[in-house]
């Protein structure tokens, strides 16, 4: 089956930052966590997908179609939630909905009313009077009310307190149970993805470091801890990233089973978190 989102050789040069020939594929039925530190290129990639920035090279296909040649048709089928509110603060929730609803071909008023009630959004309140969490819920309600097949979310949870963040993720995982839909969810808060992501794509300094199934990552990678006195140069070569201090070391290896076979018994080998995997990958040159 054709990917719902396919990026090939995407290139964009800025003064001081370059997005280097990004390749990415997202299939229907999956949630892809797009992770990386601030300034890694997540938002740039998303803005290029949405044609908010002009690409310098490469190809972006959404629903199998060129994202610029078929821009209106594609955007009718995309729901977006950005890192901050870009809706008009002076309008009320229902006024803003009225403006947006008229622009979508498949606007579903029934679904909107359902989410409005579910998220307890006050229709007569001005958007500027809503809390950040409520603004995000409003964005999500709009994104879920026009039969979008692809949801694109650029750091939707950044700046939300842990409680609201958890609530937002619960809503999202509950609503996205459709095999025909897909989500691209960018974040630097990797714990957001523990519950909801199927795929993890890591970007750093404008380059994709990996794009793999989340379970595969967590099942294969290993976090190794031990006494640094027994850390030979040959052992060091096995690490993706390594952190040493006065007491010992901690490092990430790609193959946990292999590490268990080869490393001494006094090394502790654990299952890493997504955050460990991200941090050791982006610090690899510093640490190995």
């Amino acid at each position, binding site marked *: 089956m054709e990917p719902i989102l396919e990026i090939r050789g995407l290139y964009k040069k800025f003064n001081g930052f370059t997005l280097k020939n990004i390749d990415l594929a997202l299939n229907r039925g999956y949630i892809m966590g797009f992770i990386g530190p601030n300034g890694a290129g997540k938002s740039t990639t998303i803005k290029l997908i*949405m044609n*908010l*920035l*002009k690409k310098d090279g490469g190809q972006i296909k959404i629903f199998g179609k060129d994202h610029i040649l078929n821009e*209106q048709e594609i955007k009718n089928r*995309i729901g977006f939630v950005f890192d901050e509110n870009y*809706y008009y603060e*002076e309008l009320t929730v229902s006024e803003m909905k009225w*403006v947006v609803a008229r*622009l979508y071909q498949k606007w579903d008023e029934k679904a909107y009313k359902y989410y409005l009630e579910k998220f307890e959004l006050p229709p007569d309140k001005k958007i500027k009077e809503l809390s950040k969490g409520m603004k995000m819920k409003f964005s999500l309600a709009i994104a879920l009310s026009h039969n979008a097949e692809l949801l694109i979310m650029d750091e939707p949870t950044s700046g939300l307190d842990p409680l609201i963040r958890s609530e937002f993720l619960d809503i999202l995982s509950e609503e996205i149970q459709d095999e025909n839909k897909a989500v691209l969810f960018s974040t630097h808060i990797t714990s957001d993805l523990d519950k909801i992501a199927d795929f993890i794509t890591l970007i750093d300094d404008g380059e994709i470091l990996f794009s793999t199934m989340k379970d595969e990552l967590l099942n294969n990678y290993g976090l190794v801890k031990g006494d640094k006195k027994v850390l030979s140069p040959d052992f060091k070569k096995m690490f993706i990233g390594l952190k040493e201090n006065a007491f010992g070391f901690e490092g990430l290896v790609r193959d946990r089973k292999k590490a268990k076979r080869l490393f001494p018994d006094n090394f502790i080998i654990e299952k890493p978190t997504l955050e460990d995997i991200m941090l050791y990958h982006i610090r690899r040159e510093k640490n190995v």
Partner: protein
Amino acid sequence: MYSLIVKDILIQKQRMLISFLIIILMLVSFQGIGEIMFTVSVGAFTYSLAMTACAYEDINKSNIMLNSLPLKKAKTVAAKYLSILVYYIIGTIIYFVCYIISGITKIPLNVHPLSPEVLIGGFVSVCLMQGIYLPIFFKVGYVKSKILNFAIFFGFFYGVSYLITIIKRDTNILWVKKLVEFIQAQSQVSLAMIILGVVAVFLLVSYLLSVKFYKQREF
């Protein structure tokens, strides 16, 4: 496109009252100015609303949202141009209401009556002013175009009155002479048609430039 025009009015509901007061202030300040009273007051009203609508686009960073919607850039641009016509109509209605009220109540406020010449003059001024400004707005946004925007506003009013003075005073200059002769040779209707035709072409060029600039912009 209709929803974008309504949106521009909705985001400045409260501002409408201030703009309404601008018309009253202009009527009071420009007593005895003659038929330019309409152009100045409705021009200022339209200018105020058009600028506020543009400012809100930048304040809300709404270009990111607008360009993520299934909306052609040409339509976003067209909505801004059509909004100006809407403001002009609202301004004209307010002006007309002021004229009626001043006539009925006999308050010492002399509101110049409306006529086709006055209406066309006001419309042309509004179109020229916004036709110059909007391509700049679509190229660089509101904040960066702010200084230029003031220059256009004051340059326009002083420029037009300077031009009228030249035409009246230096009737011996060849192009002025020819222009005056040409204007005098036309009937009222054909002159109005020529002026509106020129403005229409000017607006079309302005619109096409705005679309070109907006399509090139990155957000």
